């Protein structure tokens, strides 16, 4: 029997014990739901993942998309899987019934889609981007534009992208040059080159709707002069049918380390008379609109990093339980039967590290999904604004910690399998390669850390920072006197102390010292903050497990909760003490990297 993609028991722990999604049925939007419909959604996603994505995982990896000079060529299996997802209603489970959705709470949606990500993270990227594109238009486009484009995006008939990066402007959007020229009929013509456009061209859908950032002629320089446009691959006829080809040309495909289910393209807009485009919302507001999508996309990236870590953990765990190899140091008989890999303490160390990273990251991402949900559907205003504040604050951490520690978990998965893990006979090396994109796209780790330290912490008089700290502190209070959680309580209190003192030093230094020096070690600050937040998630899990164990449990459940407590202990003893070292470096405004000169390398 193959390894499960994800542990269903674990998913149910988050859904029904940690985030209590059944309580959401009291909100009008979710009133038709109960545990049965949530589980049914998980079942369908799991089936589609196992029947359509797992069997083609390796084929997709070995046959990356190609350009024949005219169009993108992909293996036909991808289209079959693409259609299966659309038919099952898995493009937009969270959307309204009218849009073909299931009005599924986001936490449940994340768990369901987790199966597809675990089976083939990147092949489903087309749909994920399309959903994000449709969400963006639904929020900022005109009614007419929404009517024209969104329903067809929701069904997968059209696909969507976001087109930001340019050859000279990747992370630095202020340097963007793509130009939009206003026409008499109110439309625009776009001229410019975009790169790294995921899903920028393919033959899976009848049309592709690009959300393009460009400067209207005469716009102010920098990020204040960027507008957003809808620019389709094919123009629509009067009757809505797909018509003539727009002036958007595929200039080439990038060939990537992983993520080979998804095209990454270079697109030329306006090689001829200009690509016909329609302004979204107000001029010069494009970046703000795009960041609406970016924040969702960032939670999505973190979730992908965490999911792949979970999948690699499950795979290597199954392997370690089944594969006999070697004997324990205490075994003196060379002819004794070999033990299973999992009998070796060092293998358990690597499994435990994976479990601590994966389930810590995953619970953080689900927590972010819950905040998105509360922001949109919480019955009272205070609940909505509070959720938004915390979500907005946590976004750089939710994006970064799982995408940095996810590949670390996959690295351990490969190591557990040994030489076998280094071959493509097993999917753990693929998971690592796929996962390695996550610290890069939708804002690199470096950019996220500048956002956290430079913006998110100080903004609104430290409001988000304080909200985060007091949420952590209330969990710490709840943990007082719970014997099973005592080591974590102390470890997290210490780490939180390091975080607070470091933050005070850094914020104080911003006013007095060279700002470039203060920001120089921001990535470490983000890692420190990430460890505190993930430690908090582990304490929350540990409290639930400790409580559950006070009642009589089935032996399987006892083992499950013991596993949670042990992973929490691992995080408390092996991970959180590192925050002391990092806090010292940060508080000293260590300048080792800052003062290193280019000529000295």
């Amino acid at each position: 029997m193959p390894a499960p993609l994800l542990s269903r028991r674990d998913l149910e722990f988050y859904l029904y014990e940690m985030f209590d999604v059944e309580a959401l049925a009291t909100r009008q939007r979710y009133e038709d739901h109960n545990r049965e419909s949530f589980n049914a959604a998980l079942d369908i996603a799991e089936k589609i993942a196992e029947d359509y994505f797992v069997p083609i995982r390796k084929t997709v990896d070995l046959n990356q998309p190609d350009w024949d000079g005219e169009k993108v060529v992909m293996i036909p299996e991808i289209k079959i899987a693409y259609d299966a997802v659309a038919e099952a209603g898995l493009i937009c489970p969270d959307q309204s019934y009218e849009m073909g959705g299931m009005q599924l709470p986001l936490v449940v949606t994340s768990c369901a889609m987790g199966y597809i990500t675990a089976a083939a993270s990147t092949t489903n990227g087309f749909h994920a981007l399309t959903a994000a594109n449709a969400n963006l238009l639904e929020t900022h486009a005109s009614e007419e534009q929404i009517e024209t484009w969104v329903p067809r995006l929701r069904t997968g008939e059209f696909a969507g992208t976001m087109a930001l990066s340019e050859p000279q402007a990747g992370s630095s959007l202020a340097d963007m040059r793509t130009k939009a020229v206003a026409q008499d009929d109110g439309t625009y013509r776009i001229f410019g080159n975009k790169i790294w456009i995921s899903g920028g061209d393919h033959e899976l859908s009848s049309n592709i709707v690009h959300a393009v950032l460009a400067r209207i002629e005469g716009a102010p320089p920098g990020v204040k002069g960027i507008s957003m446009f809808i620019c389709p691959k094919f123009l629509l006829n009067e009757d809505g049918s797909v018509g003539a080809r727009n002036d958007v040309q595929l200039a080439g495909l990038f060939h990537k380390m992983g993520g080979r289910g998804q095209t990454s393209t270079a697109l030329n807009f306006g090689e001829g008379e200009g690509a016909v485009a329609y302004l979204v919302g107000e001029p010069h507001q494009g970046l703000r609109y795009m960041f609406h999508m970016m924040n969702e996309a960032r939670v999505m990236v973190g979730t992908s990093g965490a999911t792949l870590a979970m999948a690699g953990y499950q795979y290597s765990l199954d392997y370690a339980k089944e594969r006999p190899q070697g004997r324990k140091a205490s075994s003196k008989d060379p002819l004794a039967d070999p033990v299973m890999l999992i009998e070796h303490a060092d293998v358990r160390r690597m499994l435990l590290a994976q479990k601590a990273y994966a389930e810590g990251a995953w619970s953080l991402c689900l927590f972010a999904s819950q905040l998105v949900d509360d922001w949109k559907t919480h019955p009272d205003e205070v609940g909505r604004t509070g959720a938004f504040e915390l979500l907005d604050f946590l976004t750089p951490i939710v994006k970064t910690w799982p995408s940095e520690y996810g590949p670390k978990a996959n690295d351990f998965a490969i190591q557990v399998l040994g030489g076998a893990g280094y071959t493509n006979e097993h999917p753990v090396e693929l998971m690592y390669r796929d996962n390695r994109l996550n610290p890069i796209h939708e804002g690199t780790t470096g950019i996220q850390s500048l956002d956290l330290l430079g913006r998110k912490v100080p903004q609104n008089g430290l409001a988000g920072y304080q909200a985060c700290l007091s949420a952590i502190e209330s969990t710490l209070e709840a943990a007082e006197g719970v014997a099973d959680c005592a080591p974590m309580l102390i470890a997290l209190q210490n780490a939180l102390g390091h975080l607070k003192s470091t933050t005070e030093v850094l914020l104080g230094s911003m006013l007095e010292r060279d700002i470039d020096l203060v920001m120089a070690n921001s990535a470490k600050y983000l890692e420190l903050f990430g460890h505190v937040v993930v430690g908090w998630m582990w304490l929350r899990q540990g409290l639930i497990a400790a409580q559950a164990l006070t009642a009589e449990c089935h032996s399987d459940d006892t083992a499950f909760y013991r596993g949670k407590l042990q992973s929490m202990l691992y995080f408390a003893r092996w991970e959180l003490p590192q925050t002391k070292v990092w806090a010292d470096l940060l508080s000293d405004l260590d300048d080792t990297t800052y003062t290193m000169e280019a000529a000295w390398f």
Partner: protein
Amino acid sequence: MKALVAVKRVVDYNVKVRAKADGSDVELNNVKMAINPFCEIAVEEAVRLKEAGTVSEVVVVSVGEKSSQEQIRTALALGADRGIHVEVEGRPEPLEIAKLLKGVVDKEQPQLVILGKQSIDGDNNQTGQMLGALANMGQGTFASEIKVDGDSLQVIREVDGGLQTLKLTLPAIVTTDLRLNEPRYASLPNIMKAKKKPLEVTNPAELGVEVKSHVTQLGVAPPPERAAGIKVEDVAQLVDKLKNEAKVIS
């Protein structure tokens, strides 16, 4: 024409089934349950007949504990029109199920009854045949293809020697084999629509059936683990062991 489809709640075929520690039964704690795969094929066939215009209504029935309603709703999400749950405690055996289904058949008067050929938990392969006898209907078991033709039904059966074609007079009973069709996936929107479809709950008394068990389960044990092998010295020893220990040659 009305079609009645029976579905059974069983442990999902992907689950590695274990015995309880005390050996009293199969372990069901935290175990994923699903529609019996052969029953799923039965639902699919009925829905296809409806889509083809042959059948006007698909009624799905399950006999079991309250949780069996989950499987009825799955069938409704796959396209059945309404459900009937015959609520009974414990795990009824094939004859009891057949008698209860007979009660439902009397009430609903379907022209076509489709069941899975067997369930993957009991592996009895009895319910359809027993229902055929009780309801006095012709039966086409192990069907790999069916075709309604006016008042009759053509059934191609998978038998040991190959394929057998039967012509049955309606009303009739069909039990499905693996190759009859490939069931579709329920879609998420259809799961929500299925919640609004009618699901009637009844019980043996209302159907006028007395449920009486004739079988007692004494225990459940996993198959014995395979013992480690040994190395024999020579061919003579091998032959000796095969002859006297394993007793597979004489």
